[in-house]
């Protein structure tokens, strides 16, 4: 499908702000995210970017893939840089939007302090985490976002220890508990939903956070033409539930009635190739419990106190 036709169908900005010619892997999930979120943000946007795959592949001097004003300082400080930009824009009395982009390492782990500080101080910015569930840029090591049992180079699936031994950090809840004005999860298989959420996140006054499930051909070990399929399966199995938390109230944006078994998703990826039957069962149990818990939260109404 040609780019212009796709844009017309999806109702997205026809202009591209993340240009072709970058060095991302074939089928890179995060690169698709960059394209969609910049379209949603539009031309009056400044981007602060953490060190990571998308920074490295897009800005090898003297080239750049970015048609928007873009800055990268260090790995862990993208949220702080974004906070500085937002404060300067306030001084300049400009309504330009601030978009902060980081991978899961720059969000869940090394970037968490700066993110926490920026949200607590109430800076008006949107932080988008492209979550490919590992440090892919350095050769796929485990992060706080890597799921249990995943085979990474720092948690290899060995005879004694089977991949990562812990599960993921619940970053969405951490952000909601901070009082972020808008928190959402997204997946590139549902690009319209991602596009809408970026618009919403940028429209609220105050800090917003979106975590995007981002399949990684290198780290997850699947054929490069399966990126969107894998993303859809993550949602359809319930492993990547799509919801928003607005003012402390959780609402699903895509509710899956008959969830597919997790093995449909796991089975397509080399990182889960060696999983024992009982480990697959544990992941299924984890998924079921979490999904049901989220559904119960949706029924409760406000689940996080508003901070104002």
């Amino acid at each position, binding site marked *: 499908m040609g780019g212009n036709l796709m844009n017309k169908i999806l109702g997205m900005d026809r202009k591209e702000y993340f240009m072709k010619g970058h060095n991302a892997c074939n089928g890179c999930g995060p690169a698709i995210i960059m394209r969609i979120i910049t379209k949603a943000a539009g031309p009056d946007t400044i981007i602060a970017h953490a060190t990571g795959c998308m920074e490295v592949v897009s*800005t*090898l*001097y003297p080239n*750049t893939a*970015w048609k*928007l004003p*873009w*800055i*990268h300082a260090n790995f862990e400080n993208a949220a*702080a840089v974004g906070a500085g930009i937002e404060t300067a824009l306030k001084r300049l009395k400009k309504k330009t939007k601030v978009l902060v982009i980081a991978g899961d390492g720059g969000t869940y782990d090394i970037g968490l302090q700066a993110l926490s500080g920026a949200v607590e101080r109430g800076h008006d910015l949107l932080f988008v985490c492209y979550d490919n569930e590992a440090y892919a840029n350095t050769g796929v090591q485990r992060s706080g976002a890597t799921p249990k049992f995943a085979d990474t180079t720092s948690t290899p699936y060995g005879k004694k220890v089977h991949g990562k031994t812990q599960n993921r950090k619940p970053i969405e809840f951490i952000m909601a508990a901070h009082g972020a004005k808008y928190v959402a999860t997204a997946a590139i298989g549902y690009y319209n939903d991602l596009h809408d959420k970026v618009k919403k996140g940028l429209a609220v006054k105050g800090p917003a956070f979106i975590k995007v499930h981002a399949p990684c051909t290198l780290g997850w070990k699947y054929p490069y033409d399966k990126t969107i399929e894998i993303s859809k399966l993550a949602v359809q199995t319930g492993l990547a539930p799509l919801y928003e938390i607005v003012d402390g109230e959780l609402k699903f944006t895509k509710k899956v009635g008959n969830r597919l078994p997790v093995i449909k998703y796991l089975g397509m990826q080399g990182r889960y190739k060696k999983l024992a039957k009982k480990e697959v069962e544990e992941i299924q149990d984890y998924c079921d419990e979490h999904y049901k818990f989220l559904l119960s939260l949706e029924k409760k109404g406000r689940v996080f106190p508003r901070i104002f």
Partner: protein
Amino acid sequence: MAFVKFKYGKTNVISGSDAIAIGIKLARPEVLSVYPITPQTIIAERLAQFVNNGELDAEMIRVEGEHSAISAAIGSQATGVRTISATSSQGLALMHEVLFTVSGMRLPIIMPVANRALSAPINIWNDHQDSISQRDAGWIQLYVESGQEALDTAIQAFKIGEDHEVLLPVMICLDGFQLTHVYEPVNIPSQKLVDSFLPKYNPFFKLDPKKPVTMGPVGGPDSYMELRKDLHEAMLNSAKIIKKVNDEFAKKFGRSYGDGLIETYKSKDAETLVICIGGVASTAREVIDDLRKKGLKAGMVRIKCYRPFPSASLEKACVNAKNVAVIDRNISLGASGAVYNEVKALLPKKKVSGFIMGLGGRDVKKEHIAYAIKKAGKKVVEWVGI
């Protein structure tokens, strides 16, 4: 909070912290990004007072740590707004990686550093280990001796760093407690006078949707060295601008500090020169007067600008001296004091001795400096006052 009032266009008895905070205020920064640390705290408190009292029209970001303090300053300065931070010791060490990013991106952020020792053992008192340890970070480093110089240097720092021939960040280093908490008479210039000296910030480039730029890209093996060399040359070239700004300041305000890079005292005919940094110079002046009364031809050179290293000015100042005593309030563990090392390399034909003094707030007494002058040329490196 009791707000302290200052009289502009007059001499006030104020602390070094007040002096530098007022200097910064007079330069009209628009974003201040700071995190508290002893002994920088009073500088930050004064600035917070100015902002919250409406005396300084600016935004203050009270960040969650020094790493974010300097990172938020990057974002703000890159968006085209005059920005400052302030720190000390561990805070400066925590900023380490970002300091290189600031200079590499040619962002003229201005930052006072209230000099303090580094852990371990933890110690809040004065030496120069914190900022000397950042000498390779690509920041201009200006060390001051008095409250007046702190105020004046703060104003100058913006003009130096923001010059389009320079575009470098500037650290203004002042001795923790021994200057930050010491009260002295300081002339506070009027806002009008400062405005006539320091133009509005005119960014060379900025983050602007109307003209998008990519800042902070990847520099591969084919470009990295050239970019580092550009940065190095900008740093070397900044010496010229620092001198020029010192001269311009003298014309406008009637005060100057040596040639802007170093300040000398009775150095022309001195057989023995003591080289030092910061407030120790005030003690050294007295020692030199005492020794001269006894017939010893002693003199002093105070390094005001440590980066860029003032090689030409120092060589000229030391041309007639036989012996040189370098006082270091830092130690490059396993080698020597940093300043000694560099002076020795600069003056291969002189007898240069290094003296480590005043670490972690240990008093540097007159007898310590007199000892260094007497032993200059005879010792290699010695610890004094222990």
